[in-house]
């Protein structure tokens, strides 16, 4: 049962997502019947499930929400902007109620009462009517405190009640006579008198007689007419309501009379039958023995955590849902790890075969090629399992925008693009906090006040855009606002005041923008309760770096600011170039390398004692000698013949990394260093190569920062 409860909360997340989608469509002017229906069904399903678990608060609010939405469904309520805005707020509260039901906590009662009264006003309910409606839907509250999986207490208790009903406690038994005469309609609705009679027999000891008073002669027999009726003598301790419950479904489809014959008298029942209004010649045509007491019901829940349940697509497509299997995340992670080991193993095997000097035409070599291809395919497939669309993340941000804009009194619309872009589940989870902060920042600092916007000739409504896309093997997420852009003189002044830069330091626009990422920097003259929650952009940057990502800013005065986050698709593997530097083997992510060059004598030029550039076609690119930079080898006297990897950064910066040799190009399994060493400048992670050697994976962006003039705090230790 706990599994079903957990599954309910997962379903709630999906339903809340569907609700958000539908509301967004309605907000965009697509308030067609099906969209309203989708929103209604989402709330309705949450209510239904919540009722099953006795989550009264959730049920009550969902009920009011659904009732108002039903008015819109029925066409009595217009999908006006204000109403949709209220629905969004109700969706947020519903989401909170789900969270509180799952994790505990409190709800702001003032907010709830306010929303409830607005809903009731819209639905034309007065308090009294709403109250009654809620009562109509009684949460059942299945007990979850099961002593064991094979016992469902309420079921057993109820079965015991049935047992009691059939136990002959003579002094409690009643003797009743029931006449039951079905209408033809009863048969047409799929009801079966035999089963009803059996159910009656479950209430006590019964004797059933089929009366044939209406049965015509064979030649006059009409198969569709009502000719059968039954008379049942029942000795039971069940009351009339319990007896009528058996006939609940056929109410109106039969004639039913229940006559109290009197207290049970085992010897007297025959007399009572003769007293019944039957023709004298009425004789029993059929007799049904009382049903045996049903066995207590013992639920048998499969322990398999894989539930066969077809999940609905998260969007509002009405296509046939594909069958899906829900799998515990731990199992997937275990598989990801094992596949990682497989990749390493395959790589080691390839190296051994290579070292044995076998020719490339042997069966072993071709088999190994195939093995390599298959390993790669398996790895891709496993990574796909972990991938999830960023949609859920974006939807959470929609709420942040609503709350933040209402807090600071700005009108803000969130525009999203590329919600279907998929990215590793862990990355999505860990992006939530940094994105939340960036969105708050965009609303609070990025966008101007409505008055300033109008004065600048802009629409009063500000726009925050959230975009996701795939670009050269990475995921790019952009947070943009159409505000006033970064106030660079002010940023510079603050940085100077705080001693972060010297007053006369010559900085480019990009460098000024990047000051925002320095620890302790805050442009807000006073800390607002919105974005100033003790988290600065430096924390955001660190969080992104920890994900193997980078963040850059572009800003145009008067037009707005865009933060661009570039993330790896997965945290588990990467395509890398294996290079030799001194006696060390290093891996450089392939996605960062735009080309490799072999330098001529005149290509490298010195700009100063420690600064060199390399000529690449018509431009000069800073030269970084990895050996010296990382402390592996002394400075070179000449760069003639040196091998260079040309690295490109998202913001257009480039650098040339000098290495001693290129060994290979291959997929490597990322083994994090953070847990053991913390953040090591210039290094993203480590990997195990085919020969079992450990190699560091470089972080080219971090190295580039170094090339742009910032000094490296310390040199790297040697590995291996």
């Amino acid at each position, binding site marked *: *049962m706990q*599994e*079903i409860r957990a*599954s*309910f909360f997962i*379903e709630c997340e999906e339903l809340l997502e569907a609700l958000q989608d539908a509301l967004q469509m309605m907000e965009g002017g697509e308030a067609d019947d099906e969209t309203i*229906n*989708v929103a*209604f*069904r989402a709330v*309705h*399903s949450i*209510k*239904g*499930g919540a*009722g*099953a678990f006795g989550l009264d608060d959730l049920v009550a609010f969902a009920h009011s929400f659904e009732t108002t939405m039903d008015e819109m469904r029925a066409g009595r309520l217009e999908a006006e902007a204000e109403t949709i805005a209220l629905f969004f707020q109700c969706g947020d509260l519903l989401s909170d109620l789900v969270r509180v039901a799952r994790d505990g906590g409190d709800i702001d009662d003032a907010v709830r009462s306010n929303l409830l009264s607005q809903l009731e006003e819209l639905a034309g309910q007065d308090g009294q009517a709403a109250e009654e409606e809620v009562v*109509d*839907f009684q*949460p*059942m509250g*299945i007990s979850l405190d099961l002593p064991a999986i094979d016992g*469902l207490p*309420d*079921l057993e208790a*109820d*079965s015991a009640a049935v047992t009691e009903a059939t136990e002959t406690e003579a002094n409690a038994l009643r003797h009743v006579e029931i006449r039951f005469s079905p209408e033809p309609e009863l*048969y*047409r*609705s*799929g*009801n*079966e008198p*035999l*089963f*009803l009679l*059996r*159910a009656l027999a*479950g209430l006590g000891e019964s004797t059933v007689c089929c009366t044939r008073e209406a049965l015509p002669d064979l030649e006059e027999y009409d198969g569709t007419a009502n000719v059968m009726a039954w008379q049942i003598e029942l000795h039971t301790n069940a009351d009339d309501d319990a007896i009528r419950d*058996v006939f*609940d*479904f056929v109410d*109106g*489809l039969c004639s039913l009379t229940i006559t109290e014959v009197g207290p049970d008298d085992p010897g007297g029942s025959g007399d009572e039958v003769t007293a019944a209004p039957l023709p004298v010649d009425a004789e029993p045509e059929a007799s049904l023995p009382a049903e045996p007491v*049903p066995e207590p*019901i*013992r*639920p*048998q*829940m499969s322990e398999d955590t894989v*539930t*066969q*349940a*077809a*999940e*609905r697509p998260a969007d509002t497509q*009405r296509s*046939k*849902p594909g069958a899906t299997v829900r799998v515990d995340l731990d199992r997937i992670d275990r598989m990801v790890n094992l596949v990682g080991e497989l990749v390493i193993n395959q790589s080691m095997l390839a190296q051994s075969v290579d070292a044995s000097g076998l020719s490339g035409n042997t069966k072993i070599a071709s088999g190994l090629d195939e093995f390599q291809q298959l390993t790669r395919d398996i790895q891709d497939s496993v990574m796909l399992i972990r991938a999830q669309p960023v949609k859920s993340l974006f939807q959470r941000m929609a709420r942040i925008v609503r709350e933040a804009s209402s807090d600071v009194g700005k009108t803000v619309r969130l525009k999203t693009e590329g919600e279907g872009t998929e990215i590793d589940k862990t990355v999505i989870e860990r992006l939530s906090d940094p994105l939340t902060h960036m969105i708050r920042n965009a609303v609070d600092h990025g966008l101007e006040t409505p008055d300033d916007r109008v004065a600048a000739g802009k629409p009063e409504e500000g726009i925050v855009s959230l975009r996701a896309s795939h670009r050269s093997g990475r995921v790019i997420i952009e947070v943009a606002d159409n505000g006033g852009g970064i106030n660079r003189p002010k940023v510079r002044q603050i940085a100077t005041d705080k001693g972060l830069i010297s007053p006369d330091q010559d900085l480019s626009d990009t460098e000024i923008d990047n000051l925002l990422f320095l620890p302790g920097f805050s442009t807000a003259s006073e800390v607002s309760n919105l974005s100033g929650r003790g988290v600065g952009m430096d924390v955001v940057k660190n969080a992104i770096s920890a994900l193997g990502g980078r963040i850059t800013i572009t800003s145009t005065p008067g037009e707005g600011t865009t933060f661009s986050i570039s993330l790896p698709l997965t945290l588990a593997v990467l395509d890398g170039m294996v290079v030799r530097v001194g006696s060390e083997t290093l891996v450089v992510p392939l996605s960062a390398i735009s080309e490799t060059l072999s330098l001529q004598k005149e290509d490298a030029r010195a700009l100063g004692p420690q600064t060199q550039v390399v000529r690449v076609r018509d431009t000069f690119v800073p030269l970084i000698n990895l050996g010296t930079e990382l402390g592996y080898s002394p400075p070179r006297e000449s760069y003639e013949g040196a091998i260079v990897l040309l690295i490109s950064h998202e913001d257009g910066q480039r650098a040339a990394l000098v290495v001693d040799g290129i060994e290979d190009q291959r997929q490597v399994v990322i083994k994090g260093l953070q847990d053991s060493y913390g953040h090591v400048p210039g290094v993203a992670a480590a990997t195990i190569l085919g020969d079992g050697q450990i190699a560091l994976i470089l972080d080219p962006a971090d190295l580039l920062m170094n090339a742009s003039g910032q000094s490296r705090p310390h040199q790297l230790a040697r590995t291996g």
Partner: protein
Amino acid sequence: MSLNVLAVDDSRTIRDMLKYTLNGAGMTTHLAEDGQHGLEVLDGLKPDVIITDINMPRLDGFGFIDAVRAQSEYRAVPILVLTTESSAELKSRARDAGATGWIVKPFDPEKLVKSLQIVAG
């Protein structure tokens, strides 16, 4: 009681609960997530009883019952409607559509099993 039950509901939680309850009562449960899916699952299945929700995407409960009743082999199969309300109007609509009976959500497991016994033996 080894009944073969087809349960149609768009809420996964309700489907899970139905399966839990019915399997626990020794029944065999087949699940579908909307009316259209229900018709697909029904094809080739010989359920002793069908349970269906009303408000579902693609094909709702009324449409589903119509389509089931239109097939001669399923004309007499009992169909129970799962509803969140028990209004007379809804009962009458369900009955007009060809439903055998109705169960109010959230359902009481014991009552559900009893109801199934009433309509399907």
